[in-house]
């Protein structure tokens, strides 16, 4: 297999764990983290209930069981039978390949590829006043757009290192997987 074609199978495998989260005027993406549990961003679903659309287009009703506005995470219980994503260590080297799956501007299950930049606090001068400066972020050269929120960011092997949460100065920001893992563990 050539380098140019080898992302396709990895991405295809990951898209099977990615859902659409329908909630009021917003909505975004989500990822099947554990059996019956979908992780997304808190800003994607502000209501108690959300529609979950699987990769096959089938929609089920989900219930938000935990919500962390500061870390921008929400946990949804939904009767989805999807393969759960595998997780990976977000401590990549700058320049390593990463890719994201989401539904940017309504294009469903869209893949975008880029490279890892940093894991940690945002550099001074690139901070938003409403963001807690103590938060750690995956910072990646990924062209995210509204609709990517809540979708996975994965390494070259398809292991989920975090979920897309925000765009800042064009930079893709994600919540690191260990924090998601802890959030899911504490609330399941």
């Amino acid at each position, binding site marked *: 297999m050539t380098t140019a074609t080898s992302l396709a199978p990895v991405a295809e495998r990951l898209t099977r764990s990615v859902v659409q989260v329908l909630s009021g005027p917003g909505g975004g993406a989500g990822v099947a983290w554990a059996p019956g549990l979908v992780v997304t961003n808190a800003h994607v679903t502000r209501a108690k209930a959300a529609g979950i659309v699987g990769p096959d287009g089938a929609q089920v009703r989900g219930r938000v069981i935990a919500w962390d506005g500061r870390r921008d995470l929400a946990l949804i219980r939904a009767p989805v039978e999807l393969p759960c994503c595998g997780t990976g260590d977000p401590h990549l080297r700058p320049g390593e390949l990463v890719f994201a799956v989401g539904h940017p501007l309504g294009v469903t299950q869209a893949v975008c590829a880029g490279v890892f930049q940093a894991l940690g606090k945002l550099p001074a001068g690139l901070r938003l006043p409403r963001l807690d400066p103590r938060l750690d972020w995956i910072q990646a*050269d990924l062209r995210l757009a509204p609709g990517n929120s809540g979708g996975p960011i994965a390494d070259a092997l398809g292991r989920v290192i975090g979920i897309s949460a925000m765009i800042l100065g064009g930079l893709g920001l994600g919540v690191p997987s260990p924090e998601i893992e802890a959030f899911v563990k504490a609330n399941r």
Partner: protein
Amino acid sequence: MSTLTAFSEQLANAVARASQATVSVHARPKLPSTGVHWKDGVVVTTEATVQRDNDITLTLPDGKRVPATLVGRDPGSDLAALRIDQGLLPVAERGDPAALRAGHLVLALARLGDGGPRAAFGAVSATGGRWRSWKGGELALRLQSDVRLYPGFGGGPLVDAEGLVLGINSGGLSGPLATTIPANTVDRILEQLLTRGSVARGWLGAAMQPVRGGVVLLSIEPEAPAALAGLLVGDVVIGIDGRAVDSLEPLLTFLAGDVAGKNVTLDLLRGGVRTKVDVLIGERPRRTR
């Protein structure tokens, strides 16, 4: 290891290699910009990101913060040179920008303060010959890519897949595509900045406008080279040293080169009659900051 992870490793290795000569430049409020240790004791960055002449510091790859002094700046090519102590870090390893073709994979690097290196990835979009930037500087070749220059990436290196430095990325010269000042142009400008602190550009001291077949002089500054040579308002320049001038472009390109202090012969139409006038090209007065 899969092909993809091998490729991913190669990109990370390229970043690690080039990052050894990539520094953070603190010469503006808030977000720092990036610089490249171009030769021992000399760091190159973009002119527009050096917003003060004093109190400039650099963060080196090992996290150390060191003072730097401004050697000179050239707004035309958007380059500035800073001096630091010698032997503090490795000198950038150079690639060949002239060998690039559209489609070659490249990375842009940055260092924002005391964090690790940052990278953006993309492909060369277009290459071409000599051109003149909208700021007036002449660049040896056109090098544009689809890498995204994030905040703080200005002044950083564009590197190839091996991590060899191809040039300096300029936010100010970039449009929808990222523009890189090629390494050979950096060398040429740096030489002038190190010897005289600025880049001399040719100056006539006349306002001009293109007309059919040439360029007409609309006004002439007193004591300027055009005035000293006896040029008159209304003269139409149609050639320089035998080369045709049929629009502003050839004249501006000529003046952007290393021509200050040289004698040239202008071909003119004066009152409809062809004539020749010798002009001693002056040096464009430096813009005060």
